[in-house]
């Protein structure tokens, strides 16, 4: 029994240490968004709200942030449409080269980003395409498609085909079945995939660095200003994204739990 009690304490202790390890840098980033730092946000110089009231105060930071949002939104829209279509086809239809196509979609996720970035950059170089926001969008869309396919595929596979059959039995056209039954039922999976895709694009640095030329993004801004010291405004913008995302996740969770409870009561 001695072993058992030791084991009992071991798991919570190690897990707590792991959580502190995970969350400590987040607290640090948020805390230093309130640092009265001036240009050097490395040592603590006192509390201020100035950075929060003027998040665009540092040169280029909001422009880079805006570029990241633009790239994330466009790449997410393209990747979600193309990826969802592939996911539906992969689960619902039989065709030649099915496993080859799966492999083609899966390999980018198992390739280090530096290889994906260098390959695309070599291709743009050969094609004489000037690197900028456009090439970053093309690059992000590529790796986002893979993740969208995986996420949406799971949702398509869990759909009950009987509901669509019922629609057909009631003389709905194939188009009506798709738009009024299949797509609404897939929506939670598609929205989840889109959020994942946006998050991946927004935070990507490695592939972006290879394909952005002189165009700036938020991660690239942080990387290039790392040596001189990242301005506190970058911490403010990152904290805003963090707080917004956490609120979104909590709201989604609460809605899900109350929905389940309501269904259980019925």
């Amino acid at each position: 029994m001695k072993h058992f009690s030791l084991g009992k304490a071991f798991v919570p202790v190690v897990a707590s240490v792991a959580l502190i390890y995970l969350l400590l840098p987040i607290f640090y980033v948020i805390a230093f968004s309130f640092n009265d730092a001036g240009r050097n946000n490395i040592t603590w110089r006192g509390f201020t709200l100035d950075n929060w009231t003027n998040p665009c105060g540092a040169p280029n930071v909001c422009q880079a942030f805006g570029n990241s949002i633009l790239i994330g939104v466009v790449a997410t829209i393209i990747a979600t449409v193309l990826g969802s279509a592939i996911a539906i086809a992969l689960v619902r239809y039989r065709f030649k080269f099915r496993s080859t196509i799966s492999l083609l979609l899966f390999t980018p996720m198992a390739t280090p980003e530096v290889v994906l970035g260098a390959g695309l950059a070599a291709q743009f170089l050969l094609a004489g395409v000037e690197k900028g926001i456009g090439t970053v969008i093309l690059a992000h869309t590529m790796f986002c498609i893979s993740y969208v396919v995986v996420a949406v595929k799971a949702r398509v596979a869990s759909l009950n085909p009987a509901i669509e059959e019922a629609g057909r039995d009631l003389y709905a056209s194939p188009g009506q079945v798709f738009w009024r039954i299949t797509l609404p039922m897939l929506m939670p999976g598609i929205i989840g995939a889109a959020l994942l895709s946006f998050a991946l694009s927004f935070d990507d640095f490695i592939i972006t660095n290879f394909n952005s030329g002189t165009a700036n993004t938020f991660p690239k801004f942080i990387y290039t200003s790392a040596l001189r010291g990242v301005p506190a405004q970058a911490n403010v913008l990152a904290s805003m994204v963090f707080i917004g995302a956490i609120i979104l996740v909590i709201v989604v969770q609460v809605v899900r739990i109350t929905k389940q409870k309501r269904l259980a009561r019925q």
Partner: protein
Amino acid sequence: MAFTAFSATAAAAPHAPRKRSWTALILLAPGIAYMLLFFLAPFIQLVITSLQAPADTGGIGDYVAAFQFSNYAAAIQEYWPHILRSFVYAVIATIAGLIISYPLAYLIGVRLRPYPMLQGLALILVIAPFFISFLLRTLAWKQILPSEVIGTDFSVIFGLTYNFIPFMTLPIFASLQQLDLRLVEAGSDLYASPVTTFRKVTLPLSMPGVVSGTLLSFIPMSGDYVNASREFLGSTSTPMIGNVIEASFLQTQNYPLAATLSIILMAIILVIVATYVRRSGTEDLL
């Protein structure tokens, strides 16, 4: 998580109805064309670039098509310490990540199972780092860790481990969440010690998660160049192969070298992953 999802959904496919294939073609064509154009073609271009030779003009960034296979020998000869360092770092950081992540995943997936609210909260905490720039988080460690440590092997491995904890924890959590606790009970009913029960029941049943998690961490870790760069947690004595690829492509414009090292990196990963997956007996994952 991707690996888990991939294997889980592939199994559901045989139920798929056969339908007119032109619909499938319309659904597939744009996305597949995109992937051929922006994933496969660049990959082939990388192989072609890796065999290029310097142009006679001698200008920076000027290369001509060739089949100069000696690029590979030269790259390995010059950069084997970087290649070796990358994989040593990645292996150590993967093992460290596993040691930290497994108890965390166990706590959330098994101990917290009777408390859905707490479980949900713990999961949000594990996912939370994804919502804040990973560059800022890595940079935060540069300030939190004692300055004597920065720029050493330790700080780079520390940063790599940190960056990929969620990628390790989530797949292990996913497989532990499905663990039937009656099997663990059965183990102790049969007088197995908790350690034996863990080794013979819990661990083998969570292997798919462990394999996914280690691959999802190991592959990106071995190509990472942020942690080991001088601006972040590294120094001139810690460059990984990713740093060399980045510098030769974007700074010295030695495209063949960058391409050659990329292909070498990819080839080594392929061999390691194939061996590992076969050894761990979970080939059906891929």
